[in-house]
């Protein structure tokens, strides 16, 4: 599975993809907010929205492939099933981890599944597309300390910030404000989305020459 290193021409496409992603996620979130659809984010009604978001990831990837004629990872037909299995495995893992973090095991099956689906869409799916299943698992397993190529680092940042967003979202759940949006998994799902949005924004900045230099100089915690 060839991992190619940074060449200047795909950087442009990636960057535009990232900018686009942060824009449409912002639009999507504000759409949800103003139409009070945020409350249904944990129901299967919003399944199509998630599938739409997943389709957007596919479109971005094919756009990227067609523009640059190269890819970090060549999808072979024989790997297809493996990658799908990896996605399913990660979906299940996220479900289990959510349960370990305190989510109900079965009583909110639908909600937890939707949360898991959202997180998979934003984390595992792009990784699988760009780097293939094996690398995805590896990146998931080295969340806390990762050493890879620059592109992989960008994706690692997205992965981390998305998970961090979902993690941070849980803060509002215990508060006794009795608002409907405090119910599991709404804050965590929204947190994951916001995390992914912020991550895309940051990565698009990082790919800009000037900012990249600036951040590398100052940041002690280069994520």
């Amino acid at each position, binding site marked *: 599975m060839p991992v190619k290193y940074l060449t200047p021409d795909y950087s442009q496409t990636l960057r535009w993809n990232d900018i686009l992603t942060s824009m449409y996620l912002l639009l999507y979130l504000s759409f949800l907010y103003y139409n009070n659809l945020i409350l249904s984010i944990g129901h299967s009604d919003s399944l199509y929205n998630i599938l739409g978001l997943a389709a957007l990831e596919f479109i971005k990837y094919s756009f990227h492939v067609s523009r640059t004629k190269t890819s970090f990872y060549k999808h072979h037909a024989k790997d297809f099933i493996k990658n799908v299995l990896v996605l399913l495995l990660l979906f299940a893992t996220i479900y289990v981890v959510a349960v*370990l973090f305190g989510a109900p095991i079965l009583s909110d099956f639908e909600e937890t599944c939707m949360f898991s689906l959202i997180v998979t869409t934003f984390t595992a799916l792009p990784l699988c597309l760009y780097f293939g299943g094996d690398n995805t698992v590896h990146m998931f397993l080295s*969340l806390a*300390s990762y050493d890879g190529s620059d592109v992989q680092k960008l994706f690692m940042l997205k992965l981390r910030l998305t998970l961090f967003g979902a993690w941070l979202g849980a803060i509002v759940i215990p508060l*006794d404000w009795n608002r409907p949006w405090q119910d599991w998994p709404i804050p965590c799902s929204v947190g994951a989305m916001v995390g992914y949005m912020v991550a895309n924004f940051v990565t698009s900045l990082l790919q800009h020459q000037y900012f990249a230099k600036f951040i590398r100089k100052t940041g002690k915690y280069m994520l």
Partner: protein
Amino acid sequence: MGKHWCYFLFMLWFSYLIVSSILLFSRGFLLSKNAQTTNSTCLSLSEIPCIHKESTTLSAHEQQCSADTKLSYVFQNINSASDICLPQRARVVFVIIDALRYDFALYDENLKNPLPFQNKLPVINELLKQQPDNSRLYKFIADPPTTTMQRLKALTTGSLPTFIDAGSNFATNEINEDNIIDQLLRHNLSTVLIGDDTWDGLYPNRFLRKYPYPSFDVWDLDTVDDGVNFHLYPELAKNDWSFLIAHYLGVDHCGHRYGPNHSEMERKLTEMNTVIASIVERLDPSTMLFVIGDHGMTETGNHGGDADDEVTSALFVYSHTQLSSLHASATVRQVSLVPTLASIFGVSIPFSNLGTVILDALPLLNNSQVPEWQWSLFHLWANAQQMLTYIDHYAKSAPETFSDSTLQSLRENYALLNSKLFHVSDQPSFATFTEECLVFLGKLRETCEQVWVQFDSFSMTRGLLFLFLSMFFVYVITDGIPSNRLPEIFMSSFLTCSYFVLLVAVCVSIVLYHFSYVSSLTSTIFFSTGLVSQFMLGMLVIQNWELISLNWYDRSKKERIPNLICRLVLVFHLCGLFSNSFVVEESSVLLFLLTTVILIGSLSVGQGETKKKIPRPKLRLLLIAFGMLVLVRISMYFWRCRDRLEQPWCYETYNSFTSKAETTKLQWITTLITLALFVTTTKVWLRNCGNLNGYNFTVIVLKYAPTVLVVCTSGFWVLNRLPGDPKNKAIRPWQANVLAWTVYGVSFVGILVVVLKPLCVYVLPKEKTVEGQNIIPHLFHKVKRLFNEESRDDVPILCGLGTAYSAVFVSIGIFLTHLFALIHGDGVAPATVIMFLASAFVLIITSIIRLEKATIMEQLFEIPNMSLLVWVILSQYFFYGTGHQPSFPNIIWEAAFVGTSGVISHNYILGSLIILNTFCSQILMGFLVPLLIIMPFTVSVMLPTSINRNILERENLRGEVLLYERDGLMITVAFTTICKYMVCHGIRVFATMLAATIHCRHMMIWKIFAPKLIFEAIGMFVTLVVVNLSYLVLLRINFKVDQLIVSLNKRCR
């Protein structure tokens, strides 16, 4: 003095500083109201001289003037009502049905399927229907805390109970405030007590006759009630008493044991119905009957808080003579009972009373001369005068309590009423006056309620400051000074100087107190010692500042993401304490944080590995972490609900599928299987360590004691399950108790033996290795050779030296876990096993992480702050994981009856059982802190496959023998680790203290923040004790290992 003891002295000093700052703070924060010891006095009619309007002189003739004349004189001078006692109206039979909730006393004919507690007291309804003029039923509102002792205090003194009493239900202490029973004594009226012995503790030597019964065994529904019934009827026939107290506990105990929704409750209430009916039958015309509940109970049968269910109890009054009909009321407060009783008995209202006399509960006097309303007016006004006097008096003794404007407005209000008093001439004007007067009295009571808790900001800020500073300095010293430099610093004159200065400070405080410059000795000592300690610690930090800053600078270069996450976790962990909803939901929060830290920690291993391959050890580590997290997640099923109001989404798994005392078969089987598995696994572990060889006494204890413990524990549970119905007396309670005491004894002896003879090492003489072929293959790779090179042939082989240190702590842990399992009962026992296993997993995980990261031996002695954080969170989490909640109603009082029910009522034993139960996680984790240092070496011997080979090969790890080789370093690291552990716990206590200070006017302060503070503080004290003990145990093991090796070396030469 060796450095070991210097460290220990320093730890003691630090513990003292923490304790004293917390106590200093709580003196300011948990300040209770000042009890006023003044008594009310009054003149009875016979003592009043006859004064005619015409003349003011007394004469012998006038002494004999009639009572009527005196009465008319008294009613004209109503302004001095509180100085005069009217004649006694009746005697009172005072039946307390503990925890009689208001709806227990109601009767509803329309009810088709009454619940076990409904419609069970029909006699009250009949009396209300048949003799409406002679009986009254009120909703009787208690002030929280709704525990029996606080309620009895309020019911006899009429004052508001204070918060600090809430926790001290054990040591009942004598009441020194003015109260109705002392008032009766002063007027030569006598009281008889039958029932709950709490009364006897509150009022020793006050009763004409007393038949007290122990109140503590809440599993015993009948002994007290049968005893009361036995003595009640003979007493009713006598007439030398004026006040007969009969306190029934069955209903309350039934609530605690089974909850209100149980057939036993039906039985107890029906019994009470019979009791009331037969008392009414035997009542003579001059005697009244009061039936009261001291508090209610929640759906689960507990009480103590301020939920509606808990504060509403019932008051039923019955008298053969007609009751007054003036000013009917349906809801009265419990404090109002005292002035009512005082009016009935014709004694003065106790000095500290804040209740208002219940006018329509007073029986009529057959006196046609004086109209009914005039009597009532007299009592009401006496009541008002007494309360105002009390508040005036209190304001004088504690000037800060009431603001001047409040007092002024109260006095004006009183003066206004006083002027209106003389215009009351008939019943309608009396009615309007009563309304106004009652409003005024209510206002008085509320004024007191509001300002009752006054904070002493001086003590509070000192406490906060001292705690913060001492923790800060100690952290800087233990974290900043490198461990190779610590010994010389502590061996210097620093400690001697400090202790000397402390002594001087104590002496100065005593001198100051002696010459009464200061009012409180302990506060002064805490303050002065705290002050000089901060000074000394600060000096030490300043002296070594260069060293510290250099060390920190070096380390700051190695920052990584896990550290960032750890800090975030720590911040959340602390910030949560400032929000009431996070305190309420702390169990989930801790679970969340624990999972985070464990996951991040195990994911961070193996950095810089090859990109493609995921290293096997890492996968194995993740597997272990996963197992541990699953265990922790399972422990969620043992959480207890704090309060249904506070946690609306709380799904009470443990209590919901069982009635309170009985466990289901499934639970039972799980418990037994878990315990059996626990015994086997721990035994296998110890055997694999090689610590179970030979015929050493310790080894024998370790081999057989756990099995004995499990058998006894399950036997105890079986016996306790059998007498489900009270009639089955096949098994006497003491037989079950013997089993429980066996468990206590065996675990105590086990711990003692392990501490006294800590070596589970088997010295295999050289010859034996040949003949004992059959055991050797099994043992061989566990056997550690001594590092003695000279005489290879004579060197004995030692089994279990490689785990000599850890084996002791592990076995102490095992014994403690068995003990905890017993006192947690068969329902929650698996949680204690889970706690032990989870901590073992955490130890393994952190050790593997450290082994992976270390490149040289010395790095293994560095305890990362993350491991410490996990350990602290673990100890906090399993407080919840073993079914506790930081609120008083949720204290598991049942723990005190394990093996003691009906046998022992010694408060210290009962108290320590409850402490053992409540703070089991703090005790276990505190004891096992040294394992954080020891465990990497153990893991390197026991699980060599699960770690990278590098460090093993590079450093020739030989297990815990290395610890002995570097025992100086080990002890130093143990010292710093333990200090940091104390600091970590201390930070939490500090945060709760700060939260309590910030929220001191918060609505939830008494319900959430103050109990949290008290639980954290007691947990801290427990931790301090245990942690210091664990250090001593470590010293002991080290000493014994040293002895062994020295003697072996001698033998070999």
